[in-house]
């Protein structure tokens, strides 16, 4: 892992800066590349040191599921919740604990790009909030987020296998 860190760290300062991330071409093409980058830099710091780098990447470790009983999927609450929290943070840029309509719109705009018109975007966002928003505060809180994804297999989706 440290080798990886060093290979990313272009100027060998022992920590990563935004330019190192931007040098990754694929990330630049990624619609949410900017947000992913920002997720690495927590709490307004300019650089990422090795320990925080590893901590972030640890979110993507495949979870070890012991299945004694089929049917009721025993989720280790920590890891799935942590993964979901990470994903939640990608939406919630101002860290107020809720995904507002504007934040959702921004993400949608980034992902759907020029494929849709503005009204469609609005209505998609509207509908998404309608579906998930249970306490009718016009924003999606973390619990609502978690609930809307309860049927999705987050553990396998958000795992990069070599990080085992």
């Amino acid at each position, binding site marked *: 892992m440290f080798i990886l860190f060093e290979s990313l760290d272009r100027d060998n300062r022992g920590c990563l800066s935004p330019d190192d991330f931007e040098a*990754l071409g694929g990330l630049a093409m990624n619609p*949410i590349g900017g947000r992913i980058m920002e997720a690495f830099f927590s709490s307004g710091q300019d650089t990422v040191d090795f320990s925080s780098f590893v901590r972030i*990447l640890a979110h*993507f470790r495949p979870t070890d599921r012991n299945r004694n009983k089929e049917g009721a999927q025993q989720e280790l609450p920590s890891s799935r919740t942590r993964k979901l929290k990470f994903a939640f943070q*990608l939406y919630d840029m101002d860290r107020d604990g809720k995904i507002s309509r504007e934040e959702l719109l921004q993400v949608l705009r980034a*992902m759907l790009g020029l494929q849709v*018109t503005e009204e469609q975007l609005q209505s998609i966002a509207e*509908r998404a909030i309608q579906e998930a928003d249970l306490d009718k505060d016009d924003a999606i809180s973390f619990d609502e987020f978690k609930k809307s994804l309860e049927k999705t*297999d987050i553990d396998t989706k958000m*795992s990069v296998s070599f990080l085992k």
Partner: protein
Amino acid sequence: MAALWTLSLLLSASLLGCLAMTSPDGSPLPHNLPPSLGTNISDGSLSVDLPMALRVFSMDYHHIQAPFEIVLWIMLASLAKLGFHWSGRVPAVVPESCVLIMVGLLVGGVIYGVRHSAPPTLSADAFFLFLLPPIVLDAGYFLPGRLFFENLGTILWYAVLGTLWNVLGIGLSLYGVCLLAQSSLGDVSLLHCLLFGSLIAAVDPVAVLSVFQEMQVNEQLHILVFGESLLNDAVTVVLYKLFESFLRLPSVSGLDVLLGGCRVVVVGIGGLCVGLFFGLLAALTSRFTSRAQVIAPLFVFLYSYLSYLTSEMLHFSGIMAIVTCAATMKQYVEANVSERSNTSIQYFLKMWSSVSETLIFIFLGVSTIQDIHMWSWPFVCSTLLLCLIWRATGVLLLTAFVNKLRRNAVTFRDQFIIAYGGLRGAICFSLVFLIDDFPKKRLFITTTIVVILFTVFVQGMTIKPLVELLYVKRKKRALPTLSEEIHSRLIDHLVAGIEDVVGYWGQHYWKDKFEQFNKKYLRRFLIRNDRQASSSILRVYQELERREQRGVEEEAPPIVDPRSQGRPLLPEEMESIRRILSRNLQNFNNKQTPAYSRHTLHQDTSVDRTRKPLYRHQSLGERYSYNTITHFQGEDGGLSEPQRVRTGLSRSHTVCSISPRSTLLDSSDSAGPAQTRSTDPKAAREDLVSPKHKETVERAARKHLSFVLENEKQQ
């Protein structure tokens, strides 16, 4: 009960028909081409006896014999299928394939009893050329692409290595059995055993499809078994032909074996390439079908069948070709072709594959009743046992390896179902008939039939209760909600980004790359210009909107339930709604027409005014919902050109008026703007050209506003 009686009456009627009509002198194979169409054969004609006068009544059976028999068989098969679904508790216990085979057995028995000769059998040509392609095409078209590619490695692992393991295992151990039972089985050589192994080891897609589809297990398991059964065709075909050619060669060298191995690769990849080629061609052709929509579905079938035939001609794997063709062309064809054509394609596919499958099973039953059976207890029993044992061990071993590389381990329960769900079917049956004649061929035929019957009956019937007993994870039934889709997409992008950071070229990386390539080149080339956009989020959204418009609560998308009844039809009250709507619209129309002209306000000259009213009524006819009302209000309310928001709207409307069929895009757009419309009319008012226009539009806009609000309250 009454239905049951009528159906059984009809069934027996057609049965008698089959019996009576088949001429006693060696019944022809039911799929012979009609012998001579032009000439008038009056051999078997009865006639009223009027000497030297005109025959008033005559019957000429030979003239229509072949098509008549074909139709009778298909009728028999379909009636049997109908009867099965009406027979109360039977569908819950017995899978359809079993019932059909039993009906076939019955029919075969009756025919044999009456005529004391073998009933018509399924010729291998008819099977491979006519009966198998529709089923595989249907499977390929509705293949869940994403799931398939995610599990592709595992599927290939099972298909290639698993089949090899099974073939070699069964072949070699059967040879051992033959050696042991020298007295009765001494003349079965090693190559014969291997040949037999190669045809009996392959899992059959038809049988698997019919049994698994009723089971509704979780999609991953389904795609594993099903994908394996599709892809092992390449291996089976090659091994079968290989051993057959070995049998003809005087001696077999190591080089031949090596070449055989290369052949597997060539056959597989060849099939893939042929399929890709025809798939892309079909996609391209569908791009230009806008002016002749009625034949658009035909191209799907023609190109797929062509790909199958071409690869069969080149001795590639036909199944792989047709599956690849269907899977490739699907997304482009669906985008290019109108919604009705899409529906027709899907329904025809389902219908044809259903008929094919039914026919196959019935013929399996019928062909069992023959007098060419040869029985040998040790051979048959050992084959059965060995099939089970080798499949089980194969699955266990392979899964142990593959689980280390997978993110999502295949559990023991799933493994059990995979091993147990290895059903054999009609492909083995046809292949065994194709073997060159040798003394023990009849034994092989008998054994094949026994294995097929055993797997379909015993395994087919018991797998459903086992699935429930073992708590195997079942399929999710609901369409993903929009939030699910959005968040899933986000997470996909996220993981792709992380994989980038980590430098790991995982699945997401390749998938992203492919999507970019797809978007940049393929879609632009293969999809009509006005239909380009469609991300999965958008598609889910449109689908959800469409469902809401129809006001039907569905619990599963139609893809999930392939063979049972389709979507519930639109209720008749839609008729009255339509009438009300059109009446309202007339009023709107009459008010708007003299008041202003779109052309003076809009720079969009491509909009044809005369088309507009026509289009409105047309779309009413196709999309009966309140959304169309809001749509029209919207376009009248959204007049001002300079506002960027409006151009988005007008663009979509322009598109829709030029191509009046694409009401799908239109009404989903309208659903969106409907909600934001309440604020728009106000803004629209400022940009109007003349006060008079302003006034009328204001009035209209206010009406729209109230109407919109009303509708939203209803919502």
